[in-house]
């Protein structure tokens, strides 16, 4: 079984390969291009599942690009938490793509479809790389690939709102990567290394000699990843970008792209910075309060929105706060909760954006107040929307409850009950803006007055899958929690 050793690199190779192949395929064999993309994504997913079992059996291992060990070569590291992230990225992106095939037909011009596949595969490939890489500069390059292609899957729609939102996103994310690169320069200056393990080994000594460099680097990293992951005061680009994009892109951006940067920051904290440094600077404390403010303000902003997709986008700012809250609480249970929320939110937010996409596809409505009575004409979609909202609020039986439960447990364990109050308050706020939509959709007596196009089955089946996944995550959460707890314990 020689080939299985190369799976970490092959995942990237398959995704990058299909992204470059897509335009050619779309030109010469148009029918084959969509199945080819789906096949590659599934292939990557199968490889990732195999990697999970391998990691469970033999523990963590590394892969050297070109056979060059560090410090010369780029290293991919596979431990439990990274493989978990990889699986989330690949599974959710495959699921979104199945939905996207139909939705995109009416949102995009036919001639750019091939390029959309390219960009999509690039986003997924770079995110898989970010999850696995163990090299600072490699991380920078992958972040830039991810940033360009994430902006491009917004601007591919070419209406004026999309272009403007995507430009704003590009400028702010360029600022983020600029800050990141400066931080890397600060670290390279004092350690002379790029590989995480080598930097980690060299840092304790370097911090003693040049403490200011490390302060600057950690501040720059928080700004960099905070901007890219829409941590509260740096979130200004998100609502426009996620709301104006085509619905599958919104699902992708809100579900996965912002989370991968939260994950990268987590890896910085726990695999790059030595523990004493983390304890000497109140990085976790800063993160905690920013996350809490994000949770509250994201929900409050979401309440006043009139546009359905914009409301979902603002809700993402609140929800990414939970992931950061888990990282900031710096406790095994809380981090487990944060990462469980990462999975649950990836599924529920993608599903809610898909529901919004179906509504726009079928009726062309974007305004919340026009949605009254829509439950009678689009019952399946609104059922999925209900389950997604229930999970957002954290109603028992859905995945959202479990993650909030573990976050609250973690907060109690380290003796900070104030964060339990914040979690509870934000659940209430979530209910305030999700419930009226559902109540209006189902309870309103008057007839729904807009024209309704029939929805193709290919768009509804992914919704069913999402509902099933959310309920499954709410009822049988144990194996995931155990896996995550093991993964997180390895980092302490």
């Amino acid at each position, binding site marked *: 079984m*020689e*080939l299985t050793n*190369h799976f970490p*690199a*092959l995942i*990237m*190779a398959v995704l*990058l*390969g299909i992204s*470059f*192949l*897509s*335009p*050619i395929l779309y*030109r010469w064999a148009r029918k084959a291009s969509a199945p080819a993309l789906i096949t590659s994504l599934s292939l990557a997913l199968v490889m990732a599942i195999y990697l999970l079992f391998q990691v469970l059996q033999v523990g963590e291992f590394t*892969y*050297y*690009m*070109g*056979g060059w060990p560090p410090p010369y070569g780029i290293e991919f590291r596979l431990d439990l938490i990274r493989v978990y992230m990889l699986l989330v990225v690949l599974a959710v992106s495959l699921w979104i793509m199945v939905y996207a095939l139909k939705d995109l037909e009416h949102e995009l011009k036919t001639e750019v479809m091939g390029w959309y596949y390219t960009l999509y595969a690039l986003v997924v490939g770079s995110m898989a790389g970010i999850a696995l890489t163990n090299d600072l500069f490699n991380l920078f390059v992958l972040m830039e690939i991810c940033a360009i292609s994430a902006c491009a899957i917004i601007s591919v729609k070419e209406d004026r709102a999309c272009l403007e939102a995507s430009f704003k996103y590009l400028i702010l994310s360029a600022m983020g990567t600029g800050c990141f690169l400066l931080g890397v320069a600060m670290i390279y200056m004092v350690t002379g290394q790029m590989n995480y393990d080598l930097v980690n080994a060299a840092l304790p000594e370097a911090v003693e000699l040049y403490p200011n460099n490390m302060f600057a680097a950690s501040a720059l990293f928080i700004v960099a990843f905070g901007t890219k992951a829409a941590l509260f005061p740096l979130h200004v680009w998100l609502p426009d970008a996620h709301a104006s994009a085509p619905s599958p892109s919104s699902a992708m951006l809100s579900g996965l792209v912002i989370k991968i940067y939260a994950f990268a920051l987590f890896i910085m904290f726990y695999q790059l910075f030595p523990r004493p440094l983390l304890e000497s600077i109140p990085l976790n404390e800063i993160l905690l309060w920013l996350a809490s403010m994000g949770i509250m303000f994201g929900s409050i902003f979401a309440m006043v929105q009139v546009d359905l997709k914009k409301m979902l986008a603002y809700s993402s700012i609140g929800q990414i706060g939970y992931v950061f809250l888990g990282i900031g609480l710096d406790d095994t249970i809380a981090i487990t909760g944060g990462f469980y929320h990462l999975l649950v939110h990836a599924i529920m937010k993608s599903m809610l954006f898909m529901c919004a996409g179906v509504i726009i596809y079928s009726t062309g409505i974007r305004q919340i107040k026009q949605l009254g009575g829509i439950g009678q004409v689009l019952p399946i979609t609104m059922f999925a929307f209900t389950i997604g909202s229930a999970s957002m609020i954290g109603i028992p039986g859905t995945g959202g409850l479990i993650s909030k439960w573990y976050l609250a447990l973690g907060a109690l364990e380290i003796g900070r009950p104030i964060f339990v109050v914040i979690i509870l308050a934000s659940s209430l706020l979530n209910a305030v803006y999700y419930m009226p939509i559902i109540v209006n959709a189902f309870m309103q007596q008057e007839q729904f007055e807009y024209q309704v196009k029939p929805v193709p089955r290919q768009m509804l089946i992914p919704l069913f899958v999402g509902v099933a996944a959310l309920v499954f995550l709410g009822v049988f959460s144990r194996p995931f929690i155990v896996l995550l707890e093991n993964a997180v314990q390895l980092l302490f």
Partner: protein
Amino acid sequence: MEDQIVRITSRLVAPFIQVYGIYVILHGHLSPGGGFSGGAIFGASLVLVALSFNLEVGAKQISHDTASVLESGGALGFVITGLVGVAVGANFLANRSAGFPLGEVGELFSAGAIFIITAFLGVKVASTIVTLFYNIIEGEEKSGNAH
């Protein structure tokens, strides 16, 4: 643009720029430069011709379609070169251990996979610059007609 001096000069200069671009691409493993710089030089020469004459003459050299196919092809070539390593049992992007002949240091045909990758990169960058140019120019024309 109907300028005799610009046309004749660019027609005279373009082949030399292209040869220089190819030189930089091929010597990427020996001297500063390589796929990116050489590809940019080569692509610039094509853009120069298209600018100083008109788009039809430019399209005779390399059409928009060919350029976009080459663009994907160059990047694919990079991935496939990397996969050769996996196919023969070494790591992804492996060079000597994948059996690429390394040759003598300082020779033109040396450095194994790096030489091949640089060549693919040159094709990719040159065609990307041409497609970028065409995309912006053609977009201008479309909107010009619309107004």
